[in-house]
């Protein structure tokens, strides 16, 4: 037996029964069958890359939120909730809901009206090929790295829970994803994201339900956490943010409100093409506006199945968990809290469902990344710079090949990720590199018609360079540079990333404005449909009150405020 297929290792949390294996096997068979079924419908470029642009608001909305509900959510954020407490919920609430509503109400009409295939595609129309190429290349790199993160996260679950060899898990899941995405394109990716959405909820929801039963409700859980970890506050969201030293993350409210809420989350949810692509598949502009707002309600509820299990881990697990970088034999890392909780409550059948939910999340995350990679590579790099005049069928073939090649690069990335101590810190750093400055470039381009072609390019380049520089300096000499950029020597990985995002976006905006002032703007007639003040946006006066995206966006924001007050 070669090392690659040395499936069984000594340590494992649980043993799967026959019914558990049958549940896992049925999922693999179903997604492959769906992939082959959908292949016949993915014939044109619009079919393969944008799922024919015929998704309803509900399907696009669920796919939109599910594309982000992969390994990061399930493992990384449950681990972060164990590590940092309920502070991690900021990434679901202030770090998501305002941005999703903003995407639906303000930015989506632009993306949809200009009929772009991608965010770099919008930059090409607004600024020209320089900013578009820079964005396309950086995005392609990021999606492939993210896909590797998903693979690694899944392999960790398989190792911890089942004792499966990491190599075996990576290769089996990758080949399955490769087959169904290459067959059905975005159709397959979206169908599986919707399946994954249901699987994750029904597979993970039992953990908080049974956890609450075991601890006798929220107050019982809080009491147990205080008993197990005296003197530390894991259950308040805003009260400990007055000072860097009052919370386990080493962050203050400025980092959360401006670094996370105003920059990183806005950047991720409005310009990360992986999620925006799902909304672009909507059948009309009203569905495109409603999709992210529908997604915001589900996003608001996700802490129930991710953050709460992490907190429950503090309350009920008999052992303490540790950072992956300092693990010793017999210990478990923060990122293993969710599988540990699953093994605690779920017997045969339910365990198979929970494991399948995790696997589905990881595979959908991979599928989302490779389908977005295939689109950006084909439409924003290959077609404009390498082969401008090919037939539509050629680009569809290119998309299929990109899916396969992207997966192999992702597999390499997965092995690279194993070197990093914490999955989430790594991923947040990536977002900071590319997403935060991109948000500045896209937003200025949409709202200010004076911004010029070269301002867009140099602003984006300066922001990205600043981000990479800050990240490198903080890793090379943290004692010296963390207090400079993250404003406190206590700042942990996530806190560093928030400030890194904030400063890189500020850098992008400042450089963009300065270059704009010394370069010549484009004529107004060239910017119709690309800039807010020059674009007639369809309003919903004709729609009934309850069908207006604005109404549901406001309701989402009100609910967000209520949640902040409850968990203050």
């Amino acid at each position, binding site marked *: 037996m070669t090392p690659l297929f040395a499936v069984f290792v000594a340590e494992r949390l649980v043993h799967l029964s026959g019914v558990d294996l049958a*549940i896992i096997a049925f999922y693999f068979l179903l997604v492959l069958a769906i992939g082959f079924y959908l292949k016949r419908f993915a014939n044109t470029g619009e079919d393969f890359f944008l799922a024919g642009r015929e998704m309803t608001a509900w399907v696009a909305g669920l796919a939109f939120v599910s594309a982000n509900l992969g390994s990061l959510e399930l493992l990384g954020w449950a681990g972060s909730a164990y590590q940092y407490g309920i502070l991690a919920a900021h990434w679901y609430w202030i770090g998501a809901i305002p941005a999703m509503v903003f995407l639906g109400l303000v930015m989506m009409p632009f993306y949809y009206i200009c009929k772009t295939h991608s965010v770099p595609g919008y930059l090409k129309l607004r600024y020209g090929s320089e900013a578009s190429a820079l964005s396309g290349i950086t995005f392609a790199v990021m999606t492939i790295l993210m896909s590797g993160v998903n693979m690694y996260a899944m392999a960790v679950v398989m190792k911890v829970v089942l004792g499966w060899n990491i190599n075996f898990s990576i290769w089996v899941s990758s080949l399955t994803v490769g087959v169904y995405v290459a067959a059905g394109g975005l159709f397959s990716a979206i169908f599986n994201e919707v*399946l994954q959405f249901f699987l994750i909820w029904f597979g993970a929801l039992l953990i908080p339900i*049974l956890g609450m039963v075991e601890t006798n409700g929220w107050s019982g859980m809080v009491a147990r956490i205080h008993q197990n970890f005296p003197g530390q506050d894991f259950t308040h969201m805003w009260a400990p943010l007055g000072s860097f030293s009052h919370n386990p993350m080493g962050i203050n409210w400025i980092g959360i409100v401006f670094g996370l809420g105003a920059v990183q989350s806005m950047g991720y949810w409005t310009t990360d093409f992986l999620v925006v692509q799902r909304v672009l598949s909507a059948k009309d502009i009203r569905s495109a506006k409603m999709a992210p707002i529908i997604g915001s309600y589900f996003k608001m509820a996700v802490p129930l199945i991710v953050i709460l299990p992490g907190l429950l881990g503090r309350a*009920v697990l008999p052992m303490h968990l540790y950072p992956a970088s300092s693990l010793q034999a017999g210990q478990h890392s923060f990122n293993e809290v969710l599988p540990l909780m699953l093994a605690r409550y779920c017997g045969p059948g339910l365990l198979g469902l929970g494991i399948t939910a995790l696997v589905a999340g990881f595979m959908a995350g991979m599928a989302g990344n490779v389908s977005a990679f295939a689109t950006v590579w084909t439409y924003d790099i290959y077609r404009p710079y390498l082969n401008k005049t090919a037939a539509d069928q050629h680009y569809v073939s290119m998309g299929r090949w990109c899916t396969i090649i992207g997966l192999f690069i992702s597999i390499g990335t997965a092995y690279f990720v194993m070197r990093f101590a914490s999955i989430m810190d790594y991923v947040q750093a990536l977002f900071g590199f590319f997403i935060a400055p991109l948000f500045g470039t896209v937003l200025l381009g949409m709202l200010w018609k004076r911004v010029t072609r070269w301002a867009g390019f140099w602003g984006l380049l300066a922001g990205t360079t600043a981000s990479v520089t800050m990240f490198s300096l903080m890793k090379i000499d943290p004692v010296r540079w963390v207090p400079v950029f993250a404003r406190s020597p206590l700042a942990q990985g996530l806190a560093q990333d928030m400030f890194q995002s904030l400063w890189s976006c500020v850098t992008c905006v400042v450089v963009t404005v300065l270059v704009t002032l010394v370069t010549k703007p484009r004529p107004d007639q060239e910017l119709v449909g690309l800039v807010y003040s020059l674009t007639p946006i369809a309003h919903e006066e004709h729609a009934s009150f309850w069908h207006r995206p604005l109404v549901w966006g406001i309701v989402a924001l009100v609910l967000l405020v209520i949640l902040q007050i409850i968990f203050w």
Partner: protein
Amino acid sequence: MTEKHHIIPVWFFVGVLLLVYGVMIFITGLTEWSNLPDTVLADKHASVWWGALLTVLGAVYCLSFRPKKS
């Protein structure tokens, strides 16, 4: 969702998945009723009521979104 292509709605596949899993988990829960698994709160028989819930939901989705002959 499927005006152009007449694709089977994704909700039907969701129903199939929930129905198959619901039946499997429900039956497993019944078979271990008197021989509880070694998990916390096993006496609550989560497999039985969770499996029943999935079965009902899956059946509703399958019936509501089953492919229709054109």
